[in-house]
């Protein structure tokens, strides 16, 4: 996928004016935040589990070479094969070689952000192999020739009317008069269309949420069951996973699973958690005859030990974007590459280069919510600031500080966003600025306060004060 992140501002402006998108994003926001809250509140140990999950990944990253070697030994011992890929091209080529060796024409695919990252579908198509996405959201956007706008809800930006239109256009053998007005009928139709594809495919490709060093196991987590059909029915199963997916043991995977679904969809656990170890065994009545793992680096090893090291703890739950006022306002496509939202603003410059990612690190109101909900306690705002500083130092963008302020103003002018962003940051800021009434440096926004003194805001925002005043009036108090 081509990187179009430098057009973030233009795309944002367009997105803000797109009523359809705004409706879809409004729904998404309300859904994700409430569901996560409920699931988290129902588990008293949630905060302690976050720390536990974080510690597991920190330990793994400090021993990543050794755990990957241990993992590889176990995969081989269980009859599988491991293909190491330094770059996206290497990974695509490895997949193609496996497909060619079995004469594959059609491959089914479970949802996988890694295969989006390496643009596998385009590559396979160019080589006359037809990839069929089977996750409902991925299927829909494949029909539309789009890319996912969210890492766990690829079609989040769409309304059901748009999906209906696409189904009528593509499934043109079905009766024109059929009723597709309800989401249920759309889901049913996708199920019927995809069913024979699973059986016809020669190769099934999935991602992995975890790789387990102890046992050589890959784990996928889904709600639909498409990943399981994808990896069980074809003759060959290929897992494409990046190197930081490894965890030491099954218990470690279990710890992190407890925070994953709650942070992502607000479920205690997803419907299907599937642990796969090697190909079909003697006497097995079904399952793939070949099991391959393509292990992708694609820039991750260069993040180790840098100020972006902690980003490698990310488990791709999507909570940071689900709680981001900027993401809610502009949707995922504005970010211009595979990974949107706060995690994308940090990861995109790391993986494709800061010179190609434009102003993504500025795509933030620095309200700090992403970090507060991230199950892996990743300091996303701090890392975005690191990028801004690097951008500035390297003179990549002489107008950095002006742009930073410009983007802040751009979002602050939109009242809905402004409310969200300020209600969290203002109490903290006013505490800091109290002594002088002015800041010289604003936490998390050093890129531009370095050059601008800002008046310290009052502890309550204007809107909150206005509301309070109203309430007092109603209660017969002073106006």
């Amino acid at each position, binding site marked *: 996928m081509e990187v179009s992140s430098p057009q973030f501002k233009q795309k944002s402006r367009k997105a803000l004016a797109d009523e359809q998108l705004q409706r879809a994003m409004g*729904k998404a926001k309300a859904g994700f935040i409430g569901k996560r809250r409920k699931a988290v509140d129902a*588990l*008293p*140990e949630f905060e302690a589990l976050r720390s*536990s999950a974080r510690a597991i990944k920190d330990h793994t990253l400090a*021993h*990543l*070479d*050794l755990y*990957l*070697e*241990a993992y590889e030994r176990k995969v081989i011992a269980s009859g599988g094969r*491991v*293909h*190491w*890929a330094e770059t996206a091209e290497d990974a695509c080529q*490895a997949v193609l070689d496996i497909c060619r060796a079995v004469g594959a024409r059609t491959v089914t695919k479970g949802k996988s952000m890694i295969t989006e990252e390496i643009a596998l579908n385009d590559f396979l198509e160019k080589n006359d192999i037809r990839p069929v996405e*089977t996750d*409902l959201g991925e299927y829909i956007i494949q029909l539309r020739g789009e890319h996912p706008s969210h890492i766990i*809800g690829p*079609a989040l930006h769409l309304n*059901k009317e748009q*999906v209906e239109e696409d189904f009528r256009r593509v499934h043109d053998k079905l009766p024109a008069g059929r009723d597709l007005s309800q*989401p*249920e009928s759309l*889901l*049913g139709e996708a*199920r019927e269309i995809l*069913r024979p594809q699973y059986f016809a495919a020669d190769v099934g490709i999935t991602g992995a949420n975890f790789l387990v*060093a102890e*046992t*050589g196991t890959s784990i996928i987590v889904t709600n*639909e*069951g*498409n990943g*399981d*059909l994808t990896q*069980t*029915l074809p003759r060959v199963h290929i897992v494409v996973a990046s190197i930081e997916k490894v965890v*030491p043991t*099954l*218990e*470690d995977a*279990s*710890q992190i699973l*407890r925070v994953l679904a709650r942070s992502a969809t607000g479920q*205690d656990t997803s419907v*299907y*958690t*599937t642990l796969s*170890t090697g190909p*079909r*065994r003697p006497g*097995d*009545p*079904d*399952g793939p005859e070949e099991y391959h793992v393509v292990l992708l*680096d694609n820039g991750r*090893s260069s993040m*180790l030990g840098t100020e972006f090291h902690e980003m490698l703890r990310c488990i791709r739950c999507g909570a940071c974007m689900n709680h981001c006022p900027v993401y809610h306002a502009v949707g995922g496509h504005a970010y211009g590459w595979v990974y949107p939202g706060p995690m994308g603003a940090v990861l995109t410059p790391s993986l494709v280069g800061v010179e190609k990612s434009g102003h993504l690190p500025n795509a933030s109101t620095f309200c700090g919510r992403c970090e507060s909900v991230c199950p892996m306690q990743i300091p996303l705002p701090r890392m975005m600031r690191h990028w801004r500083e690097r951008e500035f130092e390297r003179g990549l963008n002489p107008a950095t500080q002006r742009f930073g302020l410009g983007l802040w103003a751009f979002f602050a002018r939109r009242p809905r966003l402004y409310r969200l962003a300020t209600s969290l940051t203002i109490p903290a800021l006013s505490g800091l600025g109290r002594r002088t009434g002015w800041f010289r440096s604003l936490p998390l926004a050093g890129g531009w306060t370095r050059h601008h003194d800002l008046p310290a805001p009052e502890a309550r925002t204007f809107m909150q004060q206005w509301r309070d005043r109203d309430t007092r009036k109603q209660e017969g108090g002073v106006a």
Partner: protein
Amino acid sequence: MSGRDMSGREAILGKLRVAAGGGSADAARQEAVEKRLARPPRGLIPARGQLEGEARIALFCQMAEAVTATVARVRKADDVPRAVTHYLRARNLAPRVRMGADRRLKAMNWSAQKSLEIGHGPAAPQDEVGVSHAFAGVAETGTVALVSGKDNPTTVNFVPENHIIIVDAKDIAGDLESVISRLRRKYGRGEMPRVLNLVTGPSRSGDIEQTMLLGAHGPRALHLIVVDG
């Protein structure tokens, strides 16, 4: 391993080793890894599932129902075939099921269900109902654990539209970690069945406008039969 794989492997591992400190403290790192793999720390187990006896089984049923599975309880294994027929009738399904050759299923008294047709082996597209026997249950989340093997086809768990899973009450653990310990005892340390399916409710998707709908690609309905005795 092809030449490309080999050079990719060395390049990636090389970079990781440099980032980890270039080999200076390698013995200590190696030891830490071996220790963790040999004796996996159990981690933090939430209190929710830490119940005994009936309370644990009740939590399992309650959590499963909360994710729209249906649950029936029977006294002994021989009551299962009747419970299956009963379910099919209540759902207006044809009296035909697909199952593997699991010895616990085979030992049940199926012949008493005169009209019930049983197909053995992996599932095919025309199969409407699959029957599996669980390896374990997890009370904390209402999850069932299924292992693949020569008598347990994985397709039975995903291809048919309706899935009936039999769980022995004595196999219901409080948490997933206890199930992992049992797997280790059964398969050996560091070993796993080819597939372990953890199933929590019937298949669903929220991909259209965030509305959770049941019956995406896996089973539309999940029915659990808990065997007490």
